[in-house]
């Protein structure tokens, strides 16, 4: 595993020190999880969750939800009724 590459996928900046430490620790963990390769799972179905619930639906009807002001109250930056973020599309792309 290339910890730098995975950190980019996860949108996580790592210092050099962190990258070295996590590389070592995660290699050790991967060594442990490789034990699963010993199992014969060729005829086993995967389990996503254990209770027999599928397609839980509700009526498509309006109902009360958080007020806009409540939803925006924890935002680090806002403008009017919106969450404000730095530039998304531009030179960097």
């Amino acid at each position, binding site marked *: 595993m290339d910890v730098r590459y995975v950190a980019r996928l996860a*949108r996580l900046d790592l210092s050099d020190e962190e990258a070295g430490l996590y590389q070592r620790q995660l290699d050790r963990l991967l060594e442990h*999880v490789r034990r699963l390769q010993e199992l014969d799972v060729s005829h086993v179905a995967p389990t996503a969750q254990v*209770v027999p619930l599928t397609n839980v639906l509700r009526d498509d009807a309006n109902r009360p939800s958080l007020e806009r002001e409540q*939803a925006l109250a924890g935002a680090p930056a806002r403008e009017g009724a919106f969450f404000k973020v730095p*530039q998304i599309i531009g030179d960097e792309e």
Partner: protein
Amino acid sequence: MIRRSATEIAAAVNARQAAAVEVLEAQLARVEQMEPQIGAYLAKTEELARACARRVDERIAAGASLPLAGVPLAVKDNMCLAGTVTTAGSKILQGWVAPYTATAVQRLLDAGCVPVGKANLDEFAMGSSCENSALGTTRNPWDPERVPGGSSGGSAAAVAAREAALATASDTGGSIREPAAFCGVVGMKPTYGRVSRYGLIAFASSLDQIGPIARTVEDAARMYDVMAGHDPMDSTSLPRPAEPTAGGLRRDLHGLRIGLVREFATKDLGEEIDAVYQSAYRQLAALGAEIVDVALPHAEYGLATYYLIAPAEASSNLARFDGVRYGPRGNGTNVQEMYARTRAAGFGPEVKRRILIGTYALSSGYYDAYYVRAQKARTLMAGDFEKAFGACDLIACPAASSPAFPFGAKGDDPVAMYLMDFYTIPMSLAGLPALSVPCGFASDGTAGARELPLGLQLVAPLYQEARLFGAAHAYEQATRFTLDRAPAGLEGVR
């Protein structure tokens, strides 16, 4: 009053022998006295508590009878409580005020509970010692040099130190049962889907489950009965009715077959601990249970399975912490930079490790080899339990691999910490209800070490919470390990 059980407090408040506001003031004084030593809470919620206590007294005066009238409650800080700071023990949520209340917590408030504060936890409930909290240190009431367990360490320590009668907790791979064992209290994880998770900050959604921590089995059963049951706000909540449990507590174990797991021989845990568990198993037989031998041949793969599935789900759930809608934001000239810096500054090392391993297990080229294979191993594990429960009604085994350990004892090897959950993870993967009840004391063999509590784990088939509590009560009443003994220095608590 505050050394009494939740059941006794509720009875006294319902009978108007005590007012909820009086119970609360005594509880707050106790918290004030203990917090410098224990550190169970990240925040106290006195103002809300006083309002709740007054409301309880008003309802009682108006003729109501409430199942948990006036009972002081600690709320694990990964559960939303409207108007209070809710952090999940993370810097990335520091100062965030929850705009609504989790269903499980709301049901407890409606039943008369009074919320004293928000309990410490490992960051995002990832850990087995509470040492991963970014916001505070919690100490074990039985020995302040040791961890309280985790991730629900604040919840377990608060209840053990009489800083609350009950605490909410959440369990993904052992986070209720292990700290309950370490702190000498009762902790129970219900069947997956039994208790609504609406308002619980998600860690691993196919595993997370809310449950009670209490000083007695009866208290835990009453608390579970209030929290359990379908909630339309959580689409994974079970639509079937939750059978009440507190009325079915037993005095003996006649007619029950209890399975001991062949692969979980306790000899390796050391002579002293082995003796405690052997004595617990003999006690189960003395109470009338038929002891049988069962096998969980895939349990040894539990840790490997769990440490792919849980981080994979966590990496997805924690994608929402991106500096846009809540929490402190990192600076960046574009949004990608902002995300990466926010997350770098906001998450602690264990959370970063799990995000990395989970992202890797889900990444292109590795998904089938890691994530899907782990899901298949999970099927094998659930099948083991199904077979075992063909031969027994309950399973008994340790709740943790050791008693509470000293701070820093697990060093920087994450796998050493993960091994603490060896006995609890297989049940989580299979979604089964399980609890930890105190079963004796042991030192860990180090010179001058104090006696520390150990937990017996009982496990039931899916949906059999009533059987689980019923049997645990019989065992607890026959043994009384922590009913008659409090942590040193806490005996005189009124």
